[in-house]
């Protein structure tokens, strides 16, 4: 091969090889032609008989979707059967005229027409789409009598999804909606196409989405003999559908309801978890929305209203909105100081009411300061100066390294879609976050703000509850989860969602005890004492206030600040103090001081969960009973 050749020789060899390639191609095509001849001529009789016999068609049977219930069995999502009028646009000559004629038989609102238009944009013309749902018996009868006049329009009995609790817990449950192109792509990718034949709804948000696989069930098939026109003549065999599994939650709907009502018109979120398992007892985000609106394609004006509302009802604040934690960060800072050895419990700081750093004076809430402050007192009176100095001593790296294992600034892995990460500030984070080099530098003054939970700190209420849960659970951090069991609808067989400890952080018992004791002190003698006056159980807590708007030099006077610029109000709590069964975080947007608006909500939640006490105005009975009585 190393022999040199002239260009002419090279060209001759190349053309020789082209000839070889041509011959091989001809041979291969010849082989194919032979195969076609064999199949289509020699074995034609055999195959045409088989094609004739091939008259068995598979018709899918859609499984019933699983139910969602709370921990006590209250149904949150269920199905009911009703008639729906469906139209196949490609089989209808004049769509508008057909709808016009239909409207003389059944009530068709402009809303229904608009929804059909929207569905047509999202689907293919040969799909059958609902023009009216939930027909009355009378409408059904009227249509059946006139059915021959409407080719391409069909009456179908279908199962509808229903959320009997309306807007309660809607952020948790989520909703289902019609399968669109994006869903279809996902289904095809996960090789589920066969199982979704005949299904036209899929979980779009919340648990309906995250447990789609369980809730959907397995599609059955009817083997039907068809005539040459494809119409079914005879049923040959039936493989019944396997209904979807029911999902039982760790959620306590009563607790959820009490908290949602306690929020009233205020915007905010609450997350309550069981520290020893990570099970979520309540996950509230207000305002909420009625998931029933989404089930059969939301009407455009409802959609616009939900989307343009400045209170953002579709936003799940509990897992998606991150806020600076304010002073609720202090117990974690204190634990960090003990764990890293930067402070001993007894070490006392003489608080003059401010801390000077780099030419800037960081102020305490109390003019003149709190006097001598040790760690216990720093939490009870929420002394800023103590934490300014501490943050400066620890340094930002050390703070970030301590906080990270507690889950701050990371997705918790809860079984809900759409969780936010939040921000655990560090020099490395700043480098990633900003583009210009002068913005990427970390300043020492920024560390000082981080120490009292302000600055770049931003955590979701879920992260706060999870971190508190880990501390009061002696350092064992669980992955939060809302589903408790998945129950086979037929056999009743339970699959438990096992609590999953993500990590164990090696805290010293004496350190945890001190933090817990100080937080109990907050509710006895400190900032939480008013909200928890007379509580018959021992409860630890911490108030917090997150600045929304920075007043340059001026003093913050709530009444003078526009409502939307007021501080966010935080409260975190656990109870009972000696063996906590619940840890929670409450946030009230623009609620002012933590003690004022967030702490009373926590009190109501704990009174119910620990004592079974139901506030006035809420039925003591099952809320489902109340709903259906209306």
């Amino acid at each position, binding site marked *: 091969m190393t022999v040199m050749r002239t260009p002419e020789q090279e060209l001759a060899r*190349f053309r020789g090889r082209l000839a070889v390639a*041509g011959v091989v191609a001809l041979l291969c*095509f010849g082989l194919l032609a032979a*195969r076609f001849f064999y*199949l*289509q001529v020699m074995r034609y009789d055999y195959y045409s008989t088989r094609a004739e016999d091939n008259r068995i068609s598979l018709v899918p049977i859609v499984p019933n979707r699983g139910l969602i219930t709370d921990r006590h069995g209250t149904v949150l999502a269920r199905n009911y059967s009703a008639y729906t009028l469906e139209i196949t646009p490609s089989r209808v000559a004049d769509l508008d005229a057909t709808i016009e004629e239909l409207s003389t038989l059944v009530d068709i609102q402009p809303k229904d027409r608009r929804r059909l238009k929207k569905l047509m944009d999202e689907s*293919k013309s040969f799909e059958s789409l609902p023009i009216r749902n939930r027909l009355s018996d009378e409408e059904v009868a009227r249509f059946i009598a006139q059915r021959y006049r409407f080719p391409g329009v069909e009456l179908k009995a279908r199962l509808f999804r229903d959320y009997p609790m309306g807007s309660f817990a809607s952020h948790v449950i989520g909703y289902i909606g019609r399968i669109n192109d994006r869903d279809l792509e996902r289904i095809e990718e996960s090789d589920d196409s066969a199982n979704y034949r005949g299904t036209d709804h899929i979980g779009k948000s919340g648990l309906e989405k995250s447990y789609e696989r369980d809730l959907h069930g397995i599609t059955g098939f009817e083997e039907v003999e068809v005539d040459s026109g494809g119409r079914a003549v005879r049923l040959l065999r039936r493989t019944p559908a396997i209904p979807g599994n029911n999902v039982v939650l760790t959620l306590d709907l009563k607790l959820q309801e009490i908290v949602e009502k306690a929020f009233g018109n205020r915007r905010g979120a609450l997350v309550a978890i069981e520290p020893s398992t990570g099970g979520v007892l309540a996950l509230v985000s207000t305002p909420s929305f009625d998931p029933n609106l989404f089930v059969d394609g939301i009407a455009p004006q409802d959609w616009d209203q939900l989307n343009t509302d400045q209170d953002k009802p579709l936003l799940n604040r509990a897992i998606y909105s991150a806020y600076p934690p304010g002073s609720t960060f202090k117990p974690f800072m204190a634990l960090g100081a003990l764990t890293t050895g930067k402070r001993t419990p007894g070490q006392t700081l003489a608080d003059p009411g401010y801390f000077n750093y780099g030419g800037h004076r960081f102020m305490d809430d109390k003019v003149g300061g709190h006097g001598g402050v040790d760690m216990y007192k720093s939490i009870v009176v929420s002394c800023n100066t103590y934490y300014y100095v501490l943050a400066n001593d620890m340094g930002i790296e050390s703070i970030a390294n301590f906080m990270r294992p507690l889950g701050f600034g990371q997705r918790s892995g809860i079984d809900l879609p759409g969780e936010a990460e939040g921000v655990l500030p560090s020099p490395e984070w700043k480098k990633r976050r900003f583009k210009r080099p002068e913005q990427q530098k970390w300043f020492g003054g920024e560390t000082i703000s981080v120490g009292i939970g302000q600055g770049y700190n931003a955590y979701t209420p879920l992260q706060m509850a999870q971190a508190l849960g880990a501390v009061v659970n002696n350092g064992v951090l669980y992955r939060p989860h809302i589903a408790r069991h998945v129950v086979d609808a037929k056999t009743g067989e339970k699959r438990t969602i096992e609590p999953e400890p993500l990590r164990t952080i090696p805290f010293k018992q004496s350190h945890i005890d001190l933090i817990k004791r100080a937080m109990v002190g907050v509710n006895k003698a400190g900032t939480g004492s008013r909200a928890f006056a007379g509580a018959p159980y021992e409860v630890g807590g911490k108030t917090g206030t997150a600045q929304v708007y920075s007043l340059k030099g001026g003093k913050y006077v709530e009444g003078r600040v526009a409502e939307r610029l007021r501080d966010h109000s935080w409260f975190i709590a656990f109870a009972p103090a000696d063996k906590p069964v619940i840890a929670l975080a409450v946030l009230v947007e623009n609620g002012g001081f933590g003690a004022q608006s967030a702490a009373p909500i926590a009190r109501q939640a704990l009174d119910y969960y620990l004592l079974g006490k139901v506030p006035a105005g809420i039925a003591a009975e099952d809320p489902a009973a109340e709903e259906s009585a209306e």
Partner: protein
Amino acid sequence: MNSRLDPRRWLHYLLAPLDGPLTLLILILVGYAAVVMVSASPERLGTLALNTAVAFSVMWIAAKTPPSRMMSAALPLYAIGVLLLIAVALFGDVSKGARRWLNIGVTRIQPSELLKIAMPLTLAWYFQSREGMLRARDFFIAAGLLLLPVGLIAKQPDLGTSILVAASGFYVLFFAGLTWRLILPVAVVGIVGIGAIVAMGDTICQPGVDWPGLREYQKHRVCTLLDPTSDPLGKGFHIIQSTIAIGSGGVFGKGWGKGTQTHLDFLPERHTDFIFAVLTEEFGLAGALFLVVVYILLIFRGLFIAAGAPTLFSRLLAGALTLIFFTYAFVNMGMVSGILPVVGVPLPFVSYGGTALVTLCLGVGMLMSIQRHRRRVGT
């Protein structure tokens, strides 16, 4: 001013880069595809028209691009392709158990598609750069350039695409003069090996028998091919049904829109990989042979262009591109008629699917450019 608006001048501008015979053949194929699509899946005609418009634009641009420009794009395209494949291996999205897609924020791309063109382009460039001083060593380097992306694609795993990319590179080596002493033994071993598998199908397809180097699903595909009835409702279903469709078509077919296999939903993927079954069911042996003849004409036109190409680069590229068309056509018709295992290879210019159509038309455009520029480069 007037002459600029002259429609004849515009028409000339549009048609000048195109090669007459190739354009005619591609139009016949795409027209054939549209006719079959009316029967198989009429709601996709709009998208088909759009895909065709995009693919023809790409073809036109490629036809206007001189081969020298293509040559300078070869190595960068190859490098980008390989880097993307490495990115896929590290961060790719998993779909259907394979890691083939790369999410780049706005959309997802499948980098292996790029290599189908970049591979022959790069190897042709490499041999051009070594022209006149070619040694055995160069074939090893070229083989290395070939095996790196092929290995990455095979690992995804995507056996079908890795075979296509490997074939496209091998064709360049073959035309560059790879010695018969290497080709013949491999060919003989291959033929004997396939013969052995067919002969011993019953034994080696028993469950629990592992095939070295192949995954379970690949073994399954080969075994299903040997005996489709072993899995009548799963993978074998496709082959059984498409064979019935072809066989029941007879000599002249059941008629346009009258294929029972197609219209009673027995044919899987009837608008994409299995469109050939629709075509033969409705148009019979006559329709199938017509298609085969068009492909043969296309391939011979390509080989003719290669024979007349002025530089080593354009010769190798034209030869390899032509054989790629052959490979697509042969593998697809072979798998649908049940003589080759089912690997995801479309029927060139006929199967529905934008990416494949664009890739193929890009290849045709390159052939046209080589034909048009044959005299401009001094010989």
